[in-house]
């Protein structure tokens, strides 16, 4: 693993403007990913995971705006780039495996045609024949029969479609792939084999990844580093082992408590009471304070600082869990 940062996100803030006011979906989030590293983003639904993913590709709806921050991809800030420029960086440098793989393919074209058009757009020097060979190799890599290239999406099963989506994401040799809940719609067995496939491929191609899931178990399996999101903010960021052994933020701790451990001792699952806040009117200070068992006076007044706890472990909390 080299030390070069493929992507660096600094103080990213993204808002949706709605009729009722601005919704801050991503608030002051920073992280960076090195070549070959996988970052997992975990959090409840609506905490801004997908918003981050879409911001990274700048695939935002018309009512969304990146208010501040930088997204430095291979040394170049993407935020000020106009759409036409941005288009050239998509897929060739940063690609995505979508949440809804079922509908990620256009039903009227063969899967092969839809991958070829991406290669044609970004790698115009590759001939049609070479592109086809490349796609067949990708299909073998993700565990699909090469004949499937000429099939239509409706002839694929859900798991096969997810594999094809992964092959498509790899087609232009991107430096980083964002996988947004890539296995949520699949059954556990297919889910597991696809996760294994992705991690193998990632190692083999030395690619960076952003892994987005609400499922702590999935994140634990695939990522080297984990960022915990809550209500649009990142509350904790650390290496995977570290965060599971030594969660600092009360929310991270609660999240770990609410999932069963397969290998560890049997324990009672603890559900976190309350609901994530309405992002139209987020709570003052720490956004987690209304649900926080460790709340102190300061929490509803001031936003906690992003503090370094050593060993590359960062957390934003006024009253962290006991560190032992």
């Amino acid at each position, binding site marked *: 693993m080299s030390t070069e940062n493929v992507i660096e996100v600094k103080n990213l803030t993204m808002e949706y403007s709605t009729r009722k006011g601005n919704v801050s979906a991503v608030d002051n989030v920073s992280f960076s990913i090195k070549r070959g590293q996988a970052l997992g983003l975990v959090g409840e639904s609506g905490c801004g995971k997908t918003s981050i993913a879409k911001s990274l590709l700048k*695939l935002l709806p018309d009512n969304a705006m990146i208010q501040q921050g930088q997204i430095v991809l291979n040394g170049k800030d993407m935020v000020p780039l106009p759409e036409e420029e941005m288009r050239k960086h*998509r897929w060739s440098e940063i690609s995505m495996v*979508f949440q809804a793989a079922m509908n990620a*393919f256009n039903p009227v074209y063969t899967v092969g045609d839809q991958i070829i*058009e991406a290669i044609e757009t970004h790698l115009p020097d590759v001939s049609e024949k070479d592109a086809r060979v490349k796609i067949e190799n990708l299909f073998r890599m993700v565990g699909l029969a090469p004949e499937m290239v000429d099939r239509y999406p409706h002839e694929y099963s859900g798991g096969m479609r997810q594999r094809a989506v992964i092959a498509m994401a790899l087609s232009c040799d991107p430096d980083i792939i964002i996988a947004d809940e890539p296995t949520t719609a699949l059954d556990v067995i297919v889910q597991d084999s696809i996760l294994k496939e992705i991690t193998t491929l990632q190692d083999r191609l030395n690619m960076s990844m952003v892994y987005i899931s609400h499922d702590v178990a999935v994140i634990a399996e695939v990522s080297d580093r984990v960022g915990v999101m809550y209500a649009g903010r990142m509350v904790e960021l650390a290496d995977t082992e570290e965060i599971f052994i030594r969660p600092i933020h009360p929310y991270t701790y609660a999240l770990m408590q609410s999932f069963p451990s397969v290998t560890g001792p049997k324990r009672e699952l603890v559900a976190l009471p309350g609901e994530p806040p309405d992002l139209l009117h987020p709570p003052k200070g720490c956004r987690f304070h209304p649900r926080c068992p460790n709340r102190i006076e300061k929490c509803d007044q001031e936003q906690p600082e992003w503090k370094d706890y050593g060993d590359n472990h960062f957390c934003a909390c006024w009253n962290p869990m006991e560190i032992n």
Partner: protein
Amino acid sequence: MWSYIGKRIVQMFITLLLFQIATYILIDLQPGDVTDLLIGNPDITAAERARIAADLGLDGPLPSRIWTYLTNFYTGNLGVSMQQYPRPVSEILMTRLPRTFTLFMAATILSFWLGYIAGKFLAWKRGGAWEYASTITGVTLFTIFTPLLAYILLWLFARQLDSWISDTFGIDFDLPISKFNTPSLWRRAPYDTNTVFSWMNWNFFAIVMIILIALIVSNYIPRRYRPALRIGSVVLSIGGSLIWWAFISGVGLYAWDIVKHLFLPILTLTLISFGGNMLLTRTSMLETLREDYIETARAKGLPEGVIRNRHAARNAVLPVWTALVFSLSNTISGGIITETVFSWPGIGATLVQSVSVSDFAVAMGALTLIGIMTLIGHLIVDIGYVFLDPRIRIH
């Protein structure tokens, strides 16, 4: 695929049979028959009229008359016209069919294509004055009373525009307001109008076939040559035809006369279905733009034009193509009115004329022909859908 088409043709035949029986009963339910025209003639007594009716086979029970009609029909005998006695109905219909068919095809293709293009761009660039203007135009054209539209167009083109052109450029453009040709011009013509018109139709058919074959072939050649073949086939077939008519055929002047006569009827019919096609394409395209695969296409960094045409519009066209079935019947009823307004001697005008003089055999024949045309239209739409949507392809 072929068994599917075979099955559909059998279905069509059954539908046609039912259609003919229903039409026969409906016409029979109308009061009076052709002998009623003789009622004012003092020389013909009631007994004489009854005898004529019996001679014409009008007195039998309904089922037996239907049976007679159908057996005659399927042995190629469509009866004779009472009004143009004893001209066979099949001969009348065959002279008039190409005229209606041309009108119908040209208007359907034009309105579908224009509606598709307009709807596509409206959905792509939303908002602004264009959206309001086009929506209002679309709804107006969709709901307007067809004869009113025809008269507005007559006034606008044949009167206002014509006099403006002759005032400004000094050219006598002379856009005709009705009929099929200008008799004074054709008096010196080497061929009659129907011959020249049939050449024009064959030419039109050839153009459509060339473009269609080029489109199909283009899917099997390397990508980079595809646009050249597609655009080339369109430009060459249309350009070549124009050159042939203008310089080689020697009847270009006469063909131009027919084209001038075709202009207003085609425009009217096109506009009637254009509004609906445009609005439907727009709605369908707006829905398609929300699909996940559009976001995938964006994420892949494809150029805007590719996303719009290859991904969004290609899928948005599916419901519009389905709706073509409904707009066919619209075009047919509109066609009857349009032909009547412009005295266009086609099937529609024939139908109206024959009904007004109780010319039973002609009316029945015209209605059957319209039924057959509709059924063929449905078949074409169904087959086209198989090509447009791989999900319903039968393996």
